[in-house]
């Protein structure tokens, strides 16, 4: 199950390099990648995340640990973690619903200290209509008794992320976005 420590590869010319995959599962010893983390600028980190909530949690902890060790501050780290959590949860709950053994490929391309590009791929169901949800807040918020208990995920992603893109390639969903780490 464990593929050892994550290996990151340089990203020549801005093209994603193939990086070794680290399996992230809830129970696995590889839940948090061990060893040196080299998510320095121009490098990428790839994680393979099983499609269940506990594995998503482990992947978020692993990714943010790695970024923290490279000097990403708590404010930016919080935004990165929230955007990734919402994107991963959406895949688990919709595209890969009922397929907890399936995997999500998560790649972070680091343009430290300014930005972080995030890519997620899965082989689940396509987005309805081939489009990302609008994710609008129901404003004005209804009275307490009628408040929605869900549907905030895409609103948060759209608020936190730039360059949000989705496309379907064959049987694969590809979602990508950029999180700004430092003020423009």
């Amino acid at each position, binding site marked *: 199950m464990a593929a050892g420590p994550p290996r990151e590869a340089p990203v020549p010319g801005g093209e994603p390099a193939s990086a070794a995959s680290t399996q992230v599962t809830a129970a696995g010893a590889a839940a948090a990648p061990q060893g040196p983390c080299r998510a320095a600028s121009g490098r990428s980190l790839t994680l393979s995340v099983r499609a269940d*909530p*506990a594995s*998503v*949690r482990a992947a*978020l902890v692993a990714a943010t640990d790695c970024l923290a060790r490279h000097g990403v501050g*708590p*404010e930016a780290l*919080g*935004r990165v*973690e*929230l955007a990734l*959590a*919402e994107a991963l*949860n959406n895949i*688990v*709950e919709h595209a890969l619903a009922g397929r907890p053994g399936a995997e999500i490929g998560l790649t972070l391309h680091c343009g430290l200290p300014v930005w972080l590009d995030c890519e997620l791929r899965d082989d689940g169901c396509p987005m309805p209509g081939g489009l990302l949800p609008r994710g609008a*807040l129901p*404003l004005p*918020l209804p009275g*307490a*008794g009628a*408040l*929605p*208990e*869900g*549907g*905030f*995920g895409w*609103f*948060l992603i759209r*608020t*936190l992320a730039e360059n949000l893109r989705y496309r379907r390639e064959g049987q694969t969903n590809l979602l990508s976005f950029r999180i700004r780490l430092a003020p423009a």
Partner: protein
Amino acid sequence: MELIPEDRGAARIITVRAARIDASVAIRFKDAVRQAAGDWQGPVVLDLSSVTFLDSSGLGALVGAMKLLGPDRPLELAGLTPNVERVLRLTRMDTVFTIHQGAVAAGGAAVRPADAI
């Protein structure tokens, strides 16, 4: 995840001992709040000063717990760490919940939240 209720004056304070309220615990969390509130009549204050991460599923659980308790037992929040405060602010839920500054210390005084990670 552990929720510790303590009655203080008119309010029941529920201290949440969990670092993350996310999709993997959201349903359990909502149920645990309902249990910890029990048959208390009056405000129920959740002390979230140990919680360093909240996602939209966790937010949904907070909203769900508030709806379960109903208008006679308003669910209020205290001790928001920066990541929790961000989710509430971005979704405008900071206008829905009564939010107390700082954690709720013994004796009822508000204190500064523990240093957030």
